[in-house]
């Protein structure tokens, strides 16, 4: 049964989307809500079914019945394995959560909102399931087109328009670069199916063409994933998009870029680059570390809470890029586990920020000083979320982080563990600081630059209903998501299961077997890995570090004032430079993009010879 439903998770939202768009303007609100929810729940269930089926053995579904002929692919396949289908399930689940969250407060425009959310979901799900490189780019664009429009949902304000323009232009250029990369691979191999391209490249020496194709494809996906210096659009877009959309952006869309890089590396380039693993690892771990550090520092420097959360996402994406770049199954398993934990946590945190925005019409940390006292439950949720970001043992994010640390040690990159601890401490600490200031009224009330609060205030409400009352759903949904973070990683067998599927993910020769020749491949059996005392130690350090960072942010002003000028001035100057670089000017962003991709290209051309 399961293989037959393979296309339905995409088709269901593709049918429901036009329905709400066409009928929505005449239909009552409940109709649009029900169609949206039904389609999202159905897609979640269908993806889950596929994931469960693929757990037995992964399979390819040939659309239109165009199975490979004469040993060559002719049609398009959905190549469904557990990690891909699992990620699709997770995307659809977050869409369901976001739609539930917006049920009672969001001022949805005549079915257009629901329609775009469903198309966005279809794009993400198709992106996770497809086995064809061009089809991957097509679904990337479905996702992007819906995302650009949703970012600028509040057209009556300035920020959303500017954020959406930067988002749209940067990501489009990334996508055009990917078309060039795809063309190069097609010219070389005469194939578009990822398994077949991988098989055709085989273990031949990777020449310039293959390397440039890889750089352009990775460049496009890393633009979506917001790797430094391709990341500038992210904070602009996340700071201004409506909350339910931010939930999807930070929770899963950005991470899909990392997924695509992993998918492409293992299924297309792993064979031809097998002699250069050390160099590939060095280049992309370097990129990941840069992203993680810049994101963590910028996160701490923000007072606009949505921007703060956005930079925390960049920082975590840096960790994920490192995890993929270790080039081991364990790294993939760590990313998979952490991705789920981080996605749920970040979704919940954005939802908490949404409650504040709804209630007080501002999202500036200092503006909100102490005003959160009347919302103790939201404060509790935010605090728990912060601790999850700091990877408090023994919950899901901790599990993911432990796997990443083991993968780092296994790949000989022990020092990266320090970076991971720094990221957890800084991002967790920044959110704890916000929690302390807003919900407990700790720390000074005046920020260093009062003028900056302007950007965080809303002229208009995205909500219906009176702001003196918070709809229970707005608290319930993030609470459920956080309970998920607490429990998922503790389910016996969950993390070892991910490890086994990740081991399957990196078997690129077996991938070609089951996609192109319909072989039945079973999941490899691994010895269960143990969480060592070291892992607990690292996470305790990061949790304590987060508390320290938070107290420094809240009560540290006297300390900072007493710093010798020789130390204080450079720090302030550096912060000023960092703010200045994130200028919001699209010309700057594209200059950075060109330089970034050019440098990555140059380094790869030299390092992978």
């Amino acid at each position, binding site marked *: 049964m399961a293989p037959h439903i393979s*296309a339905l998770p995409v088709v269901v939202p593709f049918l429901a989307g036009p329905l709400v768009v066409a009928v929505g303007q005449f239909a009552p609100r409940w109709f649009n809500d029900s169609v949206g929810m039904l389609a999202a729940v159905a897609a979640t269930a269908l993806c889950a079914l596929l994931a469960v089926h693929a757990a037995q053995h992964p399979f390819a579904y040939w659309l239109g019945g165009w199975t490979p002929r004469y040993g060559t692919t002719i049609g*398009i396949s959905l190549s469904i394995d557990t990690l891909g289908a699992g990620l699709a399930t997770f995307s659809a689940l977050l869409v369901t959560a976001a739609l539930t969250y917006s049920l009672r407060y969001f001022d949805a425009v005549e079915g257009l909102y629901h329609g775009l959310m469903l198309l966005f979901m279809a794009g993400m799900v198709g992106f996770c399931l497809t086995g064809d490189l061009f089809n991957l780019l097509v679904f990337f664009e479905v996702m992007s087109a819906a995302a650009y429009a949703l970012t*600028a949902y509040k057209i009556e304000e300035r920020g959303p328009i500017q954020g959406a323009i930067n988002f749209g232009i940067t990501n489009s250029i990334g996508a055009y670069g990917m078309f060039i990369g795809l063309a190069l691979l097609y010219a070389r191999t005469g*194939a578009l199916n990822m398994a077949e391209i991988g098989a055709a490249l085989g273990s031949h020496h990777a020449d310039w*063409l293959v390397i*440039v194709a890889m750089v352009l494809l990775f460049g496009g996906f890393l633009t979506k994933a917001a790797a430094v210096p391709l990341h500038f659009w992210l904070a602009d877009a996340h700071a201004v998009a409506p909350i339910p959309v931010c939930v999807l952006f930070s929770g899963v869309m950005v991470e899909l870029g990392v997924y695509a890089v992993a998918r492409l590396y293992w299924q297309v380039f792993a064979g031809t680059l097998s002699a250069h693993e050390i160099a590939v690892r060095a280049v992309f771990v370097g990129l990941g570390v840069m992203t993680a550090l810049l994101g963590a520092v910028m996160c701490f420097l923000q007072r606009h809470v949505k921007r703060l959360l956005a930079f925390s996402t960049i920082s975590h994406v840096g960790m994920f890029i490192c995890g993929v770049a270790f080039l081991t199954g364990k790294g993939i398993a760590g990313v998979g586990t952490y991705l789920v934990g981080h996605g749920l946590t970040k979704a919940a945190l954005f939802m908490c920020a949404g409650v504040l925005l709804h209630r007080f019409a501002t999202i500036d940390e200092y503006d909100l000083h102490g005003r959160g006292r009347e919302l103790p439950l939201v404060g509790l949720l935010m605090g728990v979320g912060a601790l999850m970001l700091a990877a408090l043992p023994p919950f899901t994010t901790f599990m993911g982080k432990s796997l990443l640390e083991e993968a780092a040690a296994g790949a000989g990159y022990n020092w990266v563990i320090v970076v991971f601890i720094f990221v957890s401490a800084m991002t967790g600490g920044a959110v704890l600081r916000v929690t302390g200031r807003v919900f407990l009224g700790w720390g000074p009330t005046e920020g260093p630059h009062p003028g900056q609060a302007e950007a965080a205030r809303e002229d208009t409400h995205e909500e219906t209903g009176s702001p003196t009352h918070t709809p229970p759903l707005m608290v319930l949904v993030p609470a459920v998501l956080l309970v998920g973070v607490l429990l998922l990683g503790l389910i016996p067998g969950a993390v070892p299961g991910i490890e086994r599927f990740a081991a399957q993910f990196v078997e690129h020769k077996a991938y070609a077997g089951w996609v192109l020749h319909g072989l039945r491949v079973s999941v490899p059996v691994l010895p269960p890995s143990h969480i060592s005392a070291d892992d607990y130690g690292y996470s305790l350090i990061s949790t304590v570090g987060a508390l320290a960072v938070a107290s420094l942010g809240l009560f540290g002003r006297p300390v900072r004032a007493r710093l010798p000028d020789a130390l204080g001035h450079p720090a302030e100057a550096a912060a000023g430079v960092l703010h200045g670089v994130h200028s919001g000017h699209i010309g700057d962003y594209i200059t950075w993009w060109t330089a970034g991709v*050019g440098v990555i290209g140059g380094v790869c051309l030299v390092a992978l010879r």
Partner: protein
Amino acid sequence: MSRPVRLGMFAVAGAGMIVVLLLGFTGLPSFGHAHELYGALVNRTEDKLRHATDIVTALNFDIRAFDTLGEEFILFASVTGVSLLLRQLRGEKEEDQEQEGIEEHAFAGASDGLKLVSLILIPVLVAEGAYLVFHGQLTPGGGFQGGVVLAAGPIAILLAGRYLAMKAVAPKVLLESSDAIGAACYALIGLAGLIFVGTYMKNMMPLGSPGHLLSAGMMPLNSTAVGLEVAGAFLLTWTEFLDQTMIGEPSG
């Protein structure tokens, strides 16, 4: 960054970029000597398998029809997005009371000669568009090209200086439905394949004989669905943009 710094940095980065691209392109087979595995296979087998004389259409609407599904929904998503972004806000009112004023003020530049040409153009465009949509599997063209040409018909009314007449011929509700129904139909035709022959998007129509109007299985149906969607989508996008030029600013 200040403008000179930005341009200077781009001069270096762009030069680097073009070098990287050209180094990659050196690995390409020289122009005119493609060793197209996939394309050759399609060229060899398509005629016998699908009875379409335009192989590009066969790829578009059958072999790689799933890409086209995605493509149609990129279009649908962007049109929905444009409707969302250009929606009228409270306070932005259409100046209904000055309808004739709009006619004058909008496109008054059209001379009588241009108006005449435009009016003659309309039936030609509609006929040409319909031809392209229905002959996709036989000759160059198909749902997309035909759809845009069809959408250009009402635009010719606009050229004739009759903005409101254009909106009467093609009201927004009609365009939205055409857009949505076309997109949904494309997905539904695929679903028929799943229900009747067991695989999504598998052909379940008779193939007919090559060169005939009703041949090549489901391709004409898919082409029609796409034509419907594209015509609605483009005209809706144009209308949204043109309406913007008719909206007054919120007063105060």
